[in-house]
C-alpha cells in the first residue's frame, strides 16, 4: 500500500482507540474510499466514542452521532434532505455501526432502510462482542466464545448461541450489493467500498474487525487474525451482486484448521482445556466446512 501522511486521511490520528484496533484500521479505509463528498451517520460504540471526544473530532467529513440503534434512520433523513437540496447524486451517505448496533439493537431500523431501498452504504464493523461496554455477548458473537455475559464454567462452554448471518438477512431484503471483508484485507475493503458506491440503492458491507482486548489478542494481531479468520473459512469473504455470489476469496489449498485461529484468542482458551471443549472445536470446524461449501470458498 502507498504511504499516506496520516493527516491526509479523512479519519485523522488523535483518536483514543486501543493501539492496533481492527475497527479503526478498517474505518480509515472505508472513509478514504468514500472520499470527502460523504456524510456519515455513526452509531454509538467504540468508533464513535474514540473519534469524537468533544470538542475534538477525528473526522474530516461531516459526521453525526445520534443514538445506538438509529444511524440507519438518521441516514435516511440525511438522504431525504439531500434530495430536497438536489445533492443526493453528488453526496454519499455512509452509515456505520458495530455488531451490537447492526445485529441487535438497530436491526429493525436497518430492515426499514433496506425495505425502502434507500441509497445508503451501511458498513458494519464486527468485533463479535460489545467492545465499548467491556466485552459482552452480541448476536454476532461466535458459538462458544467467552464474553463477560457468556462465561465458560462448570455449566457453560461460553456463548450458547450461534452467530447471526447478517449477509443472508441483507440478501433477504434484496439489497443489491452485499459484501464481507476483514481488517486483514485493506485493499479488498477499499475495492468493495468503491464498487458498492457504483450501485444506486442499499449497500451492505460487513467487515470482521478484531478487538484487541475483547478477543484477548496482541495489539499486532488485528491484521493477521483478520486474514486467518478468512483462511480457515470461519469468516467467509464474499461478494453478492443482485443476490448472486460473484466473488469469494478462496481458502488456501492447505487451509489452516479452525483451532489454529481459535488458539490465538483468550476468548476460546477454555475450549482447549478438556474433552468437552475439543468436541466444540469440531462443531466450529464444521461451521468452516459449511461456509466453504455454501459460499464456494475452495
Amino acid at each position, binding site marked *: 500500500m502507498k504511504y499516506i501522511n496520516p493527516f491526509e486521511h479523512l479519519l485523522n490520528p488523535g483518536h483514543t482507540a486501543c493501539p492496533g484496533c481492527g475497527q479503526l484500521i478498517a474505518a480509515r479505509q472505508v472513509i478514504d474510499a468514500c472520499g470527502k463528498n460523504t456524510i456519515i451517520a455513526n452509531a454509538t460504540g467504540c468508533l464513535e466514542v474514540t473519534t469524537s471526544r468533544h470538542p475534538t473530532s477525528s473526522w*474530516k467529513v*461531516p459526521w453525526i452521532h445520534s443514538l445506538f440503534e*438509529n444511524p440507519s*434512520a438518521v441516514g435516511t*433523513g440525511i438522504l*431525504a434532505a*439531500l434530495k430536497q437540496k438536489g445533492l443526493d447524486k453528488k453526496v454519499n451517505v455512509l452509515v456505520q455501526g458495530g455488531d451490537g448496533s447492526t445485529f441487535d439493537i438497530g436491526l429493525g*431500523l436497518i430492515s426499514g432502510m433496506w425495505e425502502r431501498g434507500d441509497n445508503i452504504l451501511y458498513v458494519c464493523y464486527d468485533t463479535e462482542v460489545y467492545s465499548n461496554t467491556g466485552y459482552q455477548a452480541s448476536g454476532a458473537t461466535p458459538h462458544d466464545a467467552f464474553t463477560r455475559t457468556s462465561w465458560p464454567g462448570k455449566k457453560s462452554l461460553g456463548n450458547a448461541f450461534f452467530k447471526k448471518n447478517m449477509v443472508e438477512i441483507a440478501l433477504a431484503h434484496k439489497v443489491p450489493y452485499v459484501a464481507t471483508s476483514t481488517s486483514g484485507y485493506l485493499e479488498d475493503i477499499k475495492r468493495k467500498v468503491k464498487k458498492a458506491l457504483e450501485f444506486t440503492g442499499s449497500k451492505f458491507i460487513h467487515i470482521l474487525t478484531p478487538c484487541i482486548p475483547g478477543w484477548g489478542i496482541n495489539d499486532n494481531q488485528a491484521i493477521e487474525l483478520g486474514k486467518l479468520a478468512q483462511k480457515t473459512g470461519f469468516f467467509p469473504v464474499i461478494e453478492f451482486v443482485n443476490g448472486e455470489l460473484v466473488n469469494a476469496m478462496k481458502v488456501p489449498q492447505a487451509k489452516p484448521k479452525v483451532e489454529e485461529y481459535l488458539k490465538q484468542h483468550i476468548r476460546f482458551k477454555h475450549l482447549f482445556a478438556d474433552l468437552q471443549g475439543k468436541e466444540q472445536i469440531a462443531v466450529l470446524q464444521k461451521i468452516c466446512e459449511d461456509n466453504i461449501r455454501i459460499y464456494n470458498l475452495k
Partner: protein
Amino acid sequence: MAKQILEGSHAVAEIVRRIKPAVVSAYPITPQTHIVEDLAKMKAEGLADFEYVNTESEFAAASVVLGASATGVRTYTATSSQGLLLMTEVLFNIAGLRLPVVITCANRAVSSPINIWNDQQDSVTIRDAGWIQLYGETNQEVVDLHILGFKLAESLMLPVMINMDGFALTHTYEPVEIPSENLIRKYLPNYNPPKDFILDVNNPRSLGTFATPDRYMEIRQELFEDVALAKKEIVKLNSEFQKVFGRGLGEDGLVEQYKTKDAEIILVAMGSVCGTIKEVVDKLRNKNQKVGLLKIISFRPFPDDEVCVILSKAKYIGVVDKSISIGTEGILASDIKRACYGKINEPIKSFVVGLGGRDVTEKMIGKIVDLMKAKDNKTQFIGS
C-alpha cells in the same frame, strides 16, 4: 380569509402543507393517523413537495427527521401516546442536538390498560426532554400554534411539540381559518439554517460528539437556560403573530385568562378541557359566583411569573389535570405549586379528570368548584 369547517387532523395537515417542511416522516398511531394519512395523500396528489418517508416505527420516524434536520432542512412528524414514548430516547437527543424539529402530539392515554382515547399523560411525561411544549384549546389555536411553533423552533434552534387532545380535537369538526401561504411566508420565511451546525460536505462538522464530565454539565445548563429564555421569544413571536394574522394565542402566547380579574376561585388547566371550563365559568358567573380560568398554553417553558401574578388574587386555586404523577398528584398541579412556592399561601388543589377518554362534563367541573372550599387537599379523581 374564510373559515372552513374542518376536522382537526385535516386542519393540521393543511397548515403543515402550507408551512412547507422539506421532510415529513411518520408512523401511524391512533388518534394521530389522519394527520399523516392526509400528508401522504397531499404528496401523492402533487399538492406538496416534501419527501414523505414511511418508517417501521416512531423511533425511526423521529430519527429520520433528526437526520434531515441536521442536514439543514425544515422537518415535521406527528405521533401520540405509545409512539411518543417509543420516540423518547430520540426526543431527548433532538433537543440536545439543538435541532428545530416540530412535532404534533395527538394527546392520548398510555398503556396499561391499553386505551386509545384522550388524556395528556403522554406529552407531560416527557416534559424534561428539552422540548418546548405548547397546548391548544381549539383547532384554530392548534393551527396557529403550528405556524408560531415552526418560527419559534427555527429562531431558537430548539424542538417544539404542539399538543392537541386526541379525538376531542383531532377528530372534531370546527370552524377553522387556515392562513394563505403568502401570509404564512410573511411571518415564517423559508428556513435558513445556521451554517456551522449542519452536515455539509463543504464545511465538515461533527455533530453529536461525546462529552466527558468536564464538558457535559455546561452544555446541559445552556439547554436549560435557552428553554427558560424561550418564554421571551414566545411573547415576542405572539405579538408579531397578532400583527400579521390579526389574532393571537392567549394574551401573550404563554397563558390565557378567562374572567380571572376579580375571581375568587381560579381553575387552571390546559388543552380542550378549557372550553368546558369556560362554559361552567359563564354559568356560575350568572349565579354570582366569582370563578375564572387560567389556561396554560406554554407548558415548557413554564410561565412561572405570569402564573403567580394571576393566581395571587384568588382565594381558592384548583388545578384540573388530564395526567398524573403516579402516587403524588396531577402533573400540572405540581408545576403550579412549584411556580407559586413562597409567593402564594392559599392551598392549591389537584383534581384529575378525563383519564383514558372519560368525558369531562360541566357537572364534573361544577363538582370541582364545589370542592374548592373543602379542607381536604388530597388529589381528587373526578370521574363522574
